[in-house]
């Protein structure tokens, strides 16, 4: 098929020991003089933790920043929904944590498919993130003595997670948003809300701007800059039902892919173990119940298949606490991929509970006995209330029913150590890039990565590039901008002109179905091949038969979604191809053909210890896969064990 092309990827990992790489690199970076910074324009797309932090920090440095988002305010970016917390190697609990341990846990958690140097840097700057957020007024949880509180999270044996009730993402984002609005006030950042980026504009092979649709007026607008930073989040919504916000999408990243940015490891997706089970076909999204619940909740199913007694009537000895049984060292705190797969396996084998048989119990009975109801309310009150509200069931009385759901995408645009994609001058930050989590992300580390990229990495690395690429007076009058506008405009008009008989939502639901069934938690060769051909068929049908309501000239949600679903119908195929090519199991990617006798993921390090970065070769042509091989010099490659 496609593999085997000579590697043209240069990750630009600095020399030196892992502890010195970032320090040395920063010391050697070229700088832009303070007085010159305002002559440079940087576009930042996205206002989540990654984009918001980047835009604010670049503004503080003196660059002229243009910042875009889909929502009506930067404060609503999807980062706002994160519940559980953010990791940092502070060792405030004196429980043996360190930068090294966070680095080690993250590499191991990612099942040895991430780049060591990036992960080490992430662990290194994690402590500064907490300091920055506290200084900005983020009201983290505190102990009675006034110090910062911590909790533990899946896949870790230390307490290094900082949190603000069950609303950590909201509080971090609002901190970031405040810093951003200060720059807006000072005139260094210009905000463009209700704009959707639909293309990246290249001049002489370099990213020089973007084309966006003004979501209120429908106008297609152009913006020019000296560099473009993409921080547009993940693509879990390709599954239709996910824990992501309904406007989360792949479009910005996908359009960059089609202009030459390689897409790395698209098949690495995370299915989160603790979500509310699906209820019906009219549901628009799935709700996450924070992973922190696994600190005190115990996961179980009845020992007898098809046991439909209510949970309180099932005696203790007839319950299978399968995570504690299979993984005694980590118990209910195993990493997400393992917990999710175990739940699926129990349900596939007929032990599942609830009306569909696709749910397991998460039980707080013991914790309430041990700690008291008040303590549990203190820790999880808002989550319990949310669960009660949605399901009409009271988790203080009866165990929660949970099931895995698509949640996070480790894959994303390929970037080098400086976070630059394969397009010169196009940087990618946060969930939109592929860099730090390998094949599985540990809990509370996405917020950390977004803020690391935005607050600490990009402000340093972008200067190196800009110092070498002086402002040259390019404006949006350049032909490249006109060509891009025309291309975008044609696609919009095409979608509206089809006037078929199936709505955008129906197609989205169908592609999501294919992805969930064949490219979800369990994957195999036959299913993946089927998915590729089904998606192709659906895509052809889409362009003949889709029905988009409304017009191009004003606010039209149906049209917005139409563009995004068109991209899902292409991305879905690439995800399946990537999953098909990766003939091993690792982290969230589970190929049923490759498992240990106990049913655990079986890696093949001899052939697959690499990043798979896909290059677009044109519509209707097969993409080409390039490999970046991964070296593990500090953490010894080993089969992951949480037993």
């Amino acid at each position: 098929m496609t593999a085997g092309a000579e590697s043209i990827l240069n990750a630009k990992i600095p020399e030196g020991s892992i502890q010195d790489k970032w320090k040395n690199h920063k010391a050697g970076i070229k700088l832009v003089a303070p007085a010159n910074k305002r002559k440079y324009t940087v576009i930042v797309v996205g206002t989540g933790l990654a984009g918001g932090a980047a835009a604010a920090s670049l503004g503080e440095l003196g660059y002229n920043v243009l910042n875009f988002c889909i929502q009506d305010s930067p404060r609503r970016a999807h980062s706002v929904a994160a519940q559980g917390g953010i990791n940092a190697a502070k060792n405030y609990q004196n429980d043996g944590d360190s930068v090294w341990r966070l680095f080690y846990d993250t590499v191991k958690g990612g099942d040895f498919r991430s780049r060591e140097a990036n992960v080490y840097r992430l662990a290194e700057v994690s402590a500064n993130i907490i300091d920055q957020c506290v200084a900005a007024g983020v009201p983290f949880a505190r102990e009675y003595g006034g110090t910062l509180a911590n909790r533990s999270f899946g896949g870790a044996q230390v307490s290094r997670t900082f949190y603000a009730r069950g609303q950590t993402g909201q509080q971090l984002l609002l901190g970031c948003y405040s810093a951003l609005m200060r720059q807006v006030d000072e005139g260094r950042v210009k905000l463009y809300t209700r704009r959707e980026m639909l293309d990246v504009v290249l001049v002489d092979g370099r990213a020089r701007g973007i084309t966006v649709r003004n979501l209120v007026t429908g106008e297609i607008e152009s913006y020019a800059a000296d560099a473009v930073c993409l921080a547009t989040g993940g693509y879990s919504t390709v599954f239709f039902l996910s824990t992501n916000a309904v406007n989360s999408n792949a479009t910005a990243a996908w359009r960059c892919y089609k202009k030459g940015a390689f897409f790395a490891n698209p098949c690495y997706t995370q299915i989160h173990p603790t979500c509310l089970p699906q209820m019906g076909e009219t549901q628009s999204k799935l709700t996450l119940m924070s992973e922190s619940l696994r600190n005190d909740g115990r996961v179980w199913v009845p020992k007898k298949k098809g046991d439909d007694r209510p949970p309180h009537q099932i005696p203790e000895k007839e319950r299978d606490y399968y995570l504690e049984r299979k993984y005694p060292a980590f118990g209910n705190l195993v990493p997400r991929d393992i917990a999710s797969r175990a739940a699926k396996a129990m349900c596939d084998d007929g032990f599942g509970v609830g009306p569909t048989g696709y749910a397991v119990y998460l039980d707080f009975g013991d914790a309430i006995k041990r700690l008291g109801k008040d303590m549990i309310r203190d820790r999880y009150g808002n989550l319990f209330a949310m669960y009660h509200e949605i399901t009409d069931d009271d988790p203080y009385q009866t165990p929660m029913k949970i099931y895995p759901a698509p949640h996070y995408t480790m894959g994303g645009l390929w970037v080098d150590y400086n976070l630059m994609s394969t397009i010169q001058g196009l940087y990618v930050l946060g969930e939109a890039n592929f860099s730090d989590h390998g094949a599985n992300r540990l809990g509370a580390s996405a917020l950390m990565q977004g803020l690391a990229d935005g607050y600490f990495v990009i402000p340093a690395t972008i200067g190196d590039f800009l110092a070498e690429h002086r402002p040259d007076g390019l404006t949006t009058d350049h032909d490249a901008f006109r060509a891009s506008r025309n291309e975008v405009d044609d696609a919009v008009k095409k979608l509206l002109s089809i006037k078929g008989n199936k709505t955008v939502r129906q197609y989205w639901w169908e592609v999501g179905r294919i992805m969930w069934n064949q490219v979800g938690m369990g994957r195999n060769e036959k299913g993946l091949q089927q998915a590729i051909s089904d998606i192709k068929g659906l895509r052809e049908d889409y362009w003949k038969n889709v029905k988009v309501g409304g017009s191009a000239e004003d606010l039209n949600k149906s049209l917005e979604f139409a563009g995004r679903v068109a991209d899902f119908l292409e991305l879905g195929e690439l995800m399946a191809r990537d999953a098909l090519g990766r003939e091993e199991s690792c982290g969230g990617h589970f190929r049923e053909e490759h498992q240990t006798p106990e049913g655990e993921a079986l890696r093949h390090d001899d052939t697959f210890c690499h990043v798979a970065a896909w290059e677009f070769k044109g519509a209707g042509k097969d993409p080409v896969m390039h490999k970046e091989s991964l070296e593990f010099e500090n953490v010894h490659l080993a089969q992951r064990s949480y037993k």
Partner: protein
Amino acid sequence: MKFTIKMWRQEGPEIPGSFVEYSIDNVLPEMSFLEMLDNLNEEIIGRGEEPVAFDSDCREGICGMCGLVINGMAHGPKRACTTCELRMREFPDGAVITVEPFRAKGFPVIKDLVVDRGAFDRIIAAGGYVSVNTGSAPDGNAIPISKDIAEKAMDAAACIGCGACVAACPNASASLFTSAKISQLALLPQGHAERKQRALRMVEQMDREVFGNCSNHAECEAACPKSISIDNIARMRREYMKAMR
């Protein structure tokens, strides 16, 4: 379940709107209000008509993007609940439900149920921050903050910026929103250095936007999906008075 929806339709900011009646069938009690509207839109698109525009994103009550006036109440009849979290089981089968945008001079309608809440961003830009550049922060534990203060600050910081307070207020005042931010940063030691200037500038910006004055109706607190307390408004007044001195 089955409902009749009296829906506000308005093509654009300058075009007068009116109510249009729709009926919808096959609604499940566990569906959220917005899922019900999604389904209605599918039918509307199917008929070749223009779907109803409304905002939403997270659909779990945290982003503040959604917000409708339902049967005359901002975010509908249930207390401490956003529109996206409201379930259809809250309405009796067969009910007639009125749906309108958040109405306030400060929130001009863009289309149908979508309004422009940009004024809120401008209020925050006027001082809703601590001026600390990236990289210059001391250790997180350098300033101990008592649990009690941290919790109070968190109560205020929980505001999602949806604008229900403005929509519910007979004067369309933005006091609850503005005071929540002023309070959070006045409670925390990190915010003290700038507290005077912050209170003055944010209150002035609030007045400059076309919001009304607070006359203690407390409708805002009742409508707030996060139960932000009007004690914050009292604190904002104190902060403002102190700053004036």
